């Protein structure tokens, strides 16, 4: 299991995958918005999206889990 975490504080602009999607390492799965900039967050490992923890528009702090990949 692998957790995808926010690399910095900001709000979730887009979640580009659905639960059940297969993802590969390096693929952007979430786009954060911080200080008016879009920050893509990539999956670190290959796998299937098990659960999406946060929703678009949510505010997150650095280190918060965004989604879980299995």
């Amino acid at each position, binding site marked *: 299991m692998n957790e995808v975490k926010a*690399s*910095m*504080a*900001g*709000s979730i602009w887009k979640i580009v995958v659905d639960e059940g999607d297969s993802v590969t390492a390096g693929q952007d799965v979430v786009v954060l918005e*911080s*200080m*008016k*900039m879009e*920050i893509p967050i990539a999956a670190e490992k290959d796998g299937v999206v098990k659960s999406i923890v946060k929703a678009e528009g949510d505010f997150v702090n650095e280190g918060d889990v965004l989604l879980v990949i299995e």
Partner: protein
Amino acid sequence: MIQKVLIANRGEIAARIIRTCMKMNIETVAIYSEADREAAYVSMATESYEVGPARAQESYLHMDRIFEVAKESGADAIHPGYGFLSENPHFAKRCEQEDIIFIGPSNALITLMGDKIAARQAMKQAGIPIIPGTETAIETIDEATQEAERIGYPVMVKASAGGGGVGMEVVHTEEELLKAIETNEQRAKSLFGDGSLFLEKQIEHARHIEIQIAADAFGNVIHLFDRECSIQRRNQKVIEEAPSSLPENVRLEMGEKSIRACKEMHYENIGTIEFLVDEENNYYFLEMNTRIQVEHPVTEEITGLDLVQMQIEIAQGNPLAVQQDAISINGHAIEVRLYAEDPETFFPSPGTISTCDVPTGEGVRLEMSVENNTVVTPFYDPMIGKIIVSNRTREKTIQQLARTLNETTIEGIKTNIPMLQKIVTQEAFMKGNITTDYVNKHM
């Protein structure tokens, strides 16, 4: 006469506007979000009102709430600063409807200049060269590919409603073009509510030079010379200076043409016409900003004029207090923008500033929105302040700026200071060999 100004903004520009109002004996109303309760500008104002949660949409962009505060406080004018609502024609129009003076041009002019395609046409008609490109929004893929062939690659794909570097992409091939149209159309639609795109020739190794204009209600228009703003990252300015190092005849011709265009459009208040200048000193209209700009202090430093004061005087119906032949350039000024960001990746770096120590002294002007223990939140622009240095010559100004940056300490968050220190000691910068691709080329 304006008695009380509401400042619909935050940070260093709010503080900057309040200072001029104090000088003019005008009362001020600050607005702030939950995240800005402790901000320095809030306590500088005569009155202050919390307008909502941290997110800009619910505070600094919340028009209903801002007008509620304007009524409650009895403000007779609103200064929008830059960003936020400053170039929103609905906001300017609403001011008119609510019988509050909007310190800026009419909503019709904001609308015209906000529509990049209409602005290009207006400038072309007024005799300003424009970058070769599509005259209207592209409607079909076929049209886009044909137009791109006609213009010649590399081509810039631009959102008609965009700005600040958002919704822009350079493409070199048809394949890249098709991809860029797809992504930018969606992005422009979701960000600006308007997905229309146009194409423009990408001017390579260009400089970004702009002319500062001031125009009153009586048709008097002057220019306050030029600014060089080529040092950019992520299509946003980092270092600006005045005057630029273009040949004097070119700079003055750009100033005169800008005056003529503003007269023709019946422009009123201050504004900036931005140009791209190629290696042969051909200049082309880029866009017009219908508001005060972040980099206005460099113009103030070399001319001795207060641009915020000019804005207020024009808005209350005074004729311009100075004429063109009374304005001259005195020395040189350079501004550096301090960003809360990683100096290498340019990714934002929100957090708490533990130490903020910027030296002051003769020729050093600080416009800061942070101090010791300020929390830099992720909700707004990463700019945390500006250092403006002026001296007799460009060379002396650069030397003084380098010393000032070396003595500056900002700790607790990452800032772009290491990048600024590097640039101001590079030979290319010192020689004035600066183009909009400088950061890519030299960093």
